[in-house]
């Protein structure tokens, strides 16, 4: 199984101007732990919305790669959005689900993936062009390559260990996170 921090660090290595949306809870802390970046849009709420924010962003910025990094609980709450993304077929959107099979923020209750609900199969059924499971750190380079060069839409279900990592808390002011992201994006457009 993957260590979440090590895997996310590998994924964001040499990220260039990758646009990153992080789902609330631990994925937001994981992304922040790799080093703050103005092209990170950290979610602290809006559970179930990360993939759709990724879609709106991917449609608006077809020339750039968009990575949504989220948890299994957050992805499950927005399961219908995988169907919506499958209809639009954004070629620049990759969703990586950090799957510890539990709701970490609320006391580690088991999630649907714990019972075997298969997000990669759901994504494939929703017309994602690629979907894969990873559970070994050796696969991180391949996932990083998909994030940057793999087309889309792609969903990666990354099986991470369920142990807790120290919290690394980025800014919680949504206006500030948004404005910084938009300014950084317009500077490179």
């Amino acid at each position: 199984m993957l260590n979440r921090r090590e895997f996310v660090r590998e994924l964001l290595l040499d990220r260039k101007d990758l646009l990153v949306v992080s789902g609330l809870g631990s994925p937001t802390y994981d992304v922040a732990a790799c080093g703050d970046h103005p092209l990170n849009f950290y979610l602290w709420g809006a559970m179930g919305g990360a993939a759709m924010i990724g879609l709106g962003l991917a449609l608006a910025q077809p020339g750039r790669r968009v990575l949504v990094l989220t948890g299994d609980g957050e992805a499950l709450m927005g399961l219908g959005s995988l169907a919506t993304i499958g209809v639009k077929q954004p070629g620049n959107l990759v969703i990586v689900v950090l799957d510890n099979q539990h709701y970490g923020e609320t006391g580690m209750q088991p999630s649907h993936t714990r019972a075997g609900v298969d997000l990669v199969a759901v994504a494939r059924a929703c017309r994602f062009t690629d979907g894969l499971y990873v559970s070994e750190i050796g696969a991180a380079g391949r996932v990083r390559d998909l994030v940057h060069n793999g087309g889309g839409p792609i969903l990666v279900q990354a099986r991470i260990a369920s142990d807790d990592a120290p919290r690394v808390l980025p800014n919680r002011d949504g206006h500030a996170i948004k404005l910084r992201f938009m300014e950084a994006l317009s500077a490179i457009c």
Partner: protein
Amino acid sequence: MDDRTKSALHWPDAIHAQFRRVGIRQVGYVPDAGHSRLIELCVGDPNIHDVVLTTEQEGVGLVAGAALGGQRAALLMQSSGIGNCINMFSLLKNCGFPCLILITMRGEFAEFNPWQVPMGSITEASLKLCGFLTCRVDEPNDVEDTVGGGCDMAFNGNLPVAILLSQRLIGRKQWN
């Protein structure tokens, strides 16, 4: 055809013209009879990404992502869809994203289906609690001006704006 009849038939075209005027590039919607003409216009517009949603709450995320990427977006839904969005609206307030929603009302004038009434009767109050500016349109001739004004307020001020298109405007749903 007199002017009144003409505008009654063409209010969706007037809304689409406002979308073009303010440069709306993404439109999220759940299929809806009242919005059917406007949806057709958006689907046929090469400048608009039409995004068919499985539930209205997905549209709130879409609007936020579009804004982050520098595009303007609008949502089309029935009044019942507002109930599906409530928690996701927190994204708009927390980050100050603009949001324009055009809502076809159910559960009011001449409603055939009583199951539409509970949500239809609290739609406007719910929107206000969520921080939306709301504006109701009953007359076809008022659509263009009201929607135009709503667009300007939403996108000039990063505000959430909802236009309620009344059931009297849309007309009775035909059941036979």
